[in-house]
């Protein structure tokens, strides 16, 4: 795996837009993925960053100055991986509250908790590693790398001739 981006943002909501934009831009420049898959990754990264910031809860100042969210993007020939990590108190991803079915009027009492189901649907694979020292979410998208061809005028066969 080749590391293509390491990004650290303060644990504050105003920085999430930058993080998702940078990650999705890099993914579209590196991978042969259709636009809707890039949109899916962008949303998944945003949800993971939101969860990471909320994991700090009231332990950080409102401007996020005491907490950091770390984003690592790596890829190889078959996949691109995005890790989003925080140092919050952690949670159990298998012990999330379940919502009533959408046809149940009680469903309207649940405004939160949609982020992790969304992440699970939007990317090909997701792993949560949560410990008391922090949580890491690894999201994987499979797909070919984008072949990068050097511009023709700088091609390897180019020879300089006089006259």
């Amino acid at each position, binding site marked *: 795996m080749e590391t293509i981006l390491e990004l650290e943002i303060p644990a504050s909501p105003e920085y999430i837009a930058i993080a998702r934009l940078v990650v999705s831009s890099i993914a579209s420049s590196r991978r042969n993925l259709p636009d*809707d898959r890039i949109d899916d990754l962008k949303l998944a990264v945003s*949800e993971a960053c939101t969860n990471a910031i909320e994991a700090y809860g009231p332990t950080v100042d409102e401007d996020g100055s005491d907490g950091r969210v770390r984003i690592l993007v790596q890829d190889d020939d078959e996949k691109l991986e995005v890790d989003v990590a925080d140092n919050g108190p952690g949670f159990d991803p298998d012990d999330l509250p379940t919502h009533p*079915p959408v046809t149940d009027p009680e*469903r*309207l009492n649940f405004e*939160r908790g949609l982020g992790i*189901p*969304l992440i699970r649907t939007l990317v090909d694979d997701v792993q949560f590693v949560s410990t008391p020292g922090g949580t890491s979410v690894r999201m994987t998208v499979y797909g070919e790398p984008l072949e990068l061809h050097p511009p023709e005028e700088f091609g390897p066969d180019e020879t300089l001739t006089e006259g």
Partner: protein
Amino acid sequence: MDLGLAVDDSHPPYTVLAVKGEVDVYTAPRLREKLVELVSQGKHQIIVDLEGVDFLDSTGLGVLVGGLKRLRSHDGDLGLVCTQQRILKVFEITGLTKVFAIHDSVEAAAAR
């Protein structure tokens, strides 16, 4: 990052709230405040126009669910206008297409 929130009362009895920009955990509180404000002004039939929205996350969905709940408690309703596939997809994945009436245009939403 600015969130555009434009109120249009030209489709009575409906109030149209046109949202423009990216709705996420940073901007969603402004959408929530605007919906609360409209309800407190007695506007209980609201159409939220999402055609100008470039990005919508689960926080934005949560605010819309909260708005619908608030309006239903006043015998009102909250309808949506959305034709963008990438935004509709978020409603489909979460099953919320069954909770909200989603229309192709403001005119269609106001013709109910």
